[in-house]
């Protein structure tokens, strides 16, 4: 169905309204909780109220006797089936339902299946669990203390809470450079635990057919194929008997990548009852038990010359992983892509060491648009650059401009082994500064500061000076996305390649089948646009199929902004294969050689004779028709590609943020946010802008209000939307965005991906602005979230954070 008159929409790249919108604006989306199957039952999970305890007993008899309850399952029931524990995406194990101990508040202990969702909730209250409370490990800095309680005593031989140590870069080179540097600055900083919190919580409908042995599993998953393979391995159901379907997903942001115990319980529930079982978590379950993000405790050091040449960056990190190592990232990278912390600068040396530890909290760490820890890396380096700028008394924009990697240095190999594909960083930074009116902003800030001093002197020690504190933050980020080459990147042994199929029907319409999974990014539009660009078929004539493992080729799914870099490449190459075949068929139709043909989007014609044109539709009909085809050619017009990317892609951007802080209340208002992004070739500017806007709002959230905190007993303090605060329309400005384009040289259409760029780039920029505002009070750093209380305390503390 066309959403606009034909001549108003692009055939190929450009601003195209979304093909998926018509169902959503009618409330006809099909999300997991919308799915109703005949005889369907409802599941609910009983969760541990305590952070660390031995399970003494679990009595489900009263629950089982409830007239509407069909099954009650515990860890003890799952154990003989080998299902009580399951592998995590980091090759650790996690309880499906607790057997020996509970290891975080909110951990799954029992699963009830009942006739309706209300009865299932009632039944939870009838289960009696006796806990023997143990001391919890909450502060990661004490996780490795001598005598600290051992959380993972389920792991053979485990005597501590250590998970891994990981390094990248050259420690010796760093030592030398730091030793000889004019200026060295050190700064502790925390990237607090936050949560992707998509508005749709996680859930599944499991439908196990006892007769055919086929499991159909509707799931909120960003990686349906990976899930299918993992269920086959874990549950022992043959892979060809599993069908995973991601219907419409109400936001993922990396929180819907892993396999959660609730999904497994739904599957078991269906097997046990012989009926479909729906399990959808409530919001508190989502916040306290599903994949959190970040929780990196970092110490950064930066070395420079006294005139502002950055020489080296090094960092030590303590990574709080929760009670199980459940991070989703490629196997060889336990700290994800954190080693991209060298940032956008030409350094002489770099080194990082990351230590991962267990604590009695929910597992996770990689989620919320982090691009596998790139959020942490960019935060580290962009805050360090600002701390250095303050130390040197140098303008932070100027400091960055002096040290950015130059265009002629690309492809650029960083000191930690990344090969950045392309970029013209100075142009992008200049553009952001111009759009922001940077010099005018600094002038305004200077005037305000002068006025503040005058007012303060004039009032002679009277009531607090009321002039708002204006802060300007600058940041530049380089992302590393599009994982990745299969020899370097796999998840649980599955290489990170993705596939696509393109088929043109006899009447010239087409279908493209993807292995990635949209959760709002607009794949039904953008991937049609890629095919459209290559084949000239109008986007409304191209059906995009995704989310059903029975209907799509294999791939690792959507996260880490990989859809466009990997699957987009696959689709482009597949479309070109189709075009190449179409050329041969057209040559046969026109009785010329293929070299004599010219291509003009949508049609081939004999060079110099436009009237001879044969459209893709003509060619498709001929392919399926009765006339002879060239020798050896089969009568169809389709192709399939599995794309193994040669490298990651490196979108980048320059951001400027202006904040105004009320010094008497500590309230921070984001006045302006300017974002100039470079994601290479732009498929749909409208969708790109939307992705950037969403990420910028994430930044405001993390910088000013989002945190999952715990008390000393391990009680989660961020378990509802009353406590886990996210921005509304009132807390964000009208975004100002622009772009530059430096295509990726190794990507078939030069596109780099953009989904997580703004989430990565914005938090340090906002914090740079906040610190800039507070610098008149001698504040050098303040950790996120910069709540009113924290800001006020920073202003009024006798000593600012000095380390």
């Amino acid at each position, binding site marked *: 169905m066309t*959403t*606009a*008159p034909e001549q*108003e929409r692009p055939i190929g*790249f450009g601003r195209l*309204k979304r093909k*998926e*919108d018509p*169902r*959503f*604006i*009618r*409330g*006809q*989306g099909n*999300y997991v*909780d*919308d799915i109703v199957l005949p005889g369907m039952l409802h599941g609910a999970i009983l969760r541990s109220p305590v952070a660390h305890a031995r399970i003494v007993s679990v009595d489900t008899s009263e629950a089982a006797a409830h007239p509407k309850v069909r099954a009650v399952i515990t860890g003890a029931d799952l154990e003989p089936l080998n299902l009580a524990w399951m592998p995590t995406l980091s090759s650790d194990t996690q309880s499906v339902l607790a057997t020996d101990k509970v290891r975080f508040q909110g951990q799954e202990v029992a699963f009830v299946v009942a006739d*309706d969702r*209300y009865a299932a909730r009632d039944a939870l209250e009838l289960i009696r669990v006796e806990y023997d409370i143990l001391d919890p490990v909450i502060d990661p800095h004490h996780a490795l203390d001598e005598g600290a309680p051992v959380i993972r005593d389920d792991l053979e031989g485990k005597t501590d809470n250590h998970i891994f140590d990981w390094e990248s870069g050259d420690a010796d080179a760093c030592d030398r450079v730091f030793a000889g540097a004019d200026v060295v600055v050190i700064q502790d900083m925390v990237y607090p635990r936050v949560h*992707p*919190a*998509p*508005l*749709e919580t996680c859930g599944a409908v499991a439908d196990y057919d006892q007769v055919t042995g086929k499991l159909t599993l509707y799931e909120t998953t960003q990686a349906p194929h990976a899930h299918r393979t993992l269920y086959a391995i874990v549950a022992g159901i043959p892979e060809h008997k599993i069908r995973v379907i991601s219907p419409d997903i*109400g*936001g993922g942001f990396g929180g819907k990548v892993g396999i959660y115990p609730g999904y497994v319980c739904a599957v078991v529930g269906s097997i046990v009852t012989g009926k479909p079982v729906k399990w959808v978590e*409530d*919001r*508190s379950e989502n916040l306290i038990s599903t994949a959190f993000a970040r929780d990196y405790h970092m110490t950064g050091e930066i070395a420079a010359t006294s005139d502002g040449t950055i020489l080296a960056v090094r960092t030590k990190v303590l990574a709080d992983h929760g009670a199980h190592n459940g991070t989703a990232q490629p196997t060889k990278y336990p700290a994800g892509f954190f080693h991209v912390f060298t940032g956008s600068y030409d350094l002489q040396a770099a080194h990082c060491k990351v230590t991962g530890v267990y604590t009695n909290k929910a597992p996770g760490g990689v989620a919320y648009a982090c691009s596998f820890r790139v959020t942490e890396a960019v935060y580290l380096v962009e805050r360090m650059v600002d701390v250095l700028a303050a130390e040197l008394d140098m303008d932070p924009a100027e400091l960055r401009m002096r040290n950015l990697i130059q265009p002629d240095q690309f492809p650029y190999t960083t000191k930690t082994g990344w090969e950045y594909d392309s970029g*013209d960083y100075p142009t992008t930074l200049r*553009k952001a500064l111009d759009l922001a009116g940077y010099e005018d902003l600094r002038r305004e800030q200077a005037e305000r500061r002068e006025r503040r001093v005058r007012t303060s002197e004039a009032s002679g020690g009277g009531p607090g000076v009321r002039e708002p504190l204006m802060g300007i933050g600058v940041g530049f980020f380089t992302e590393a996305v599009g994982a990745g080459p299969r020899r370097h990147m796999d998840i649980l042994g599955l290489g990170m390649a993705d596939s696509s199929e393109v088929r043109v029907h006899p009447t010239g319409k087409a279908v493209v089948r993807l292995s990635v999974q949209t*959760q*709002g*990014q*607009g794949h039904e539009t953008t991937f049609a646009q890629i095919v459209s660009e290559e084949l000239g078929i109008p986007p409304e004539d191209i059906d995009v199929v995704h989310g059903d493992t029975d209907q799509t080729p294999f791939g690792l799914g959507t996260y880490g902004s990989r859809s466009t870099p990997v699957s987009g490449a696959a689709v482009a190459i597949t479309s070109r294969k189709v075009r190449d075949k179409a050329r041969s068929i057209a040559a046969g139709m026109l009785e010329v050689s293929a070299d004599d043909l010219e291509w003009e989007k949508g049609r081939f014609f004999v060079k110099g004779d436009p009237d001879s044109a044969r459209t893709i539709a003509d060619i498709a009909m001929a392919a399926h028709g009765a006339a002879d085809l060239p020798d050896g050619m089969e009568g169809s017009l389709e192709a399939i590609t599995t794309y193994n990317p040669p490298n990651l892609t490196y979108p980048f951007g320059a951001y400027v943020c202006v904040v105004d802080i009320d010094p008497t209340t500590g309230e921070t208002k984001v006045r302006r946010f300017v974002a100039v992004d470079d994601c290479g070739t*732009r498929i749909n*500017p409208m*969708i790109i*802008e*939307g992705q*950037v*806007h*969403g990420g*910028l*709002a*994430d930044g405001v959230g993390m910088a000013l209000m989002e945190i999952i905190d715990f008390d000393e007993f391990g009680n989660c303090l961020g378990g*509802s*939307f009353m406590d886990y605060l*996210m921005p*509304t*329309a*009132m807390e*964000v400005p*009208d*975004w100002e965005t622009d*772009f530059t*384009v*430096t*295509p990726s040289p190794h990507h078939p259409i030069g596109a780099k991906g953009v989904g997580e760029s703004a989430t990565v780039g914005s938090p340090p920029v906002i914090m740079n602005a906040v610190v800039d505002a507070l610098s008149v009070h001698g504040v050098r750093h303040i950790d996120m979230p910069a709540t009113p209380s924290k800001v006020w305390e920073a202003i009024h503390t006798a000593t600012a954070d000095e380390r």
Partner: protein
Amino acid sequence: MDVTLSVNGIEYQRDVEPRMLLVHFLRDELGLTGTHWGCDTSNCGTCVVLIDGEPVKSCTTLAAMTVGHDVLTVEGLEQDGRLDPVQQGFMEEHGLQCGFCTPGMMLTARALLDANPDPSTDEIREAISGQLCRCTGYATIVRSIRWAAERGAGGNGAGPAAGDRTEAQEQEVGS
């Protein structure tokens, strides 16, 4: 208990538990799954419907309490095959991504425009401040509602008006 509700102009009668929340009545009893739910504490607003023309969080009211009142859900916005200008605006201005907050946002927009046909962007932001979106960053939602405001109440089903904003042509090198 017997609950008879008027939803989108149609009377529905069901026998439900007194504790059934309006959102579940709409979704599970009536199959109108366009109204969503996303939290436990009345914060997210994905459950917003109009009751007697006013936005209400349907997760925080009982079906029983709604007897005798008129409910409008997202399914009721389209009339006789013609989309409400709010629905069109959201498509025109990319006011949705995952679509989960969208029904609630559109209904609040509808109620706002009924009361205030030419709201400022500040007024729009205030009107939707009880509803969260994790995808769009809100700017396109504001633009979508402004689009509908500019098209007026009579524009049901019409395409983009003349003088719609022009788009920049994409260049190979943007700088």
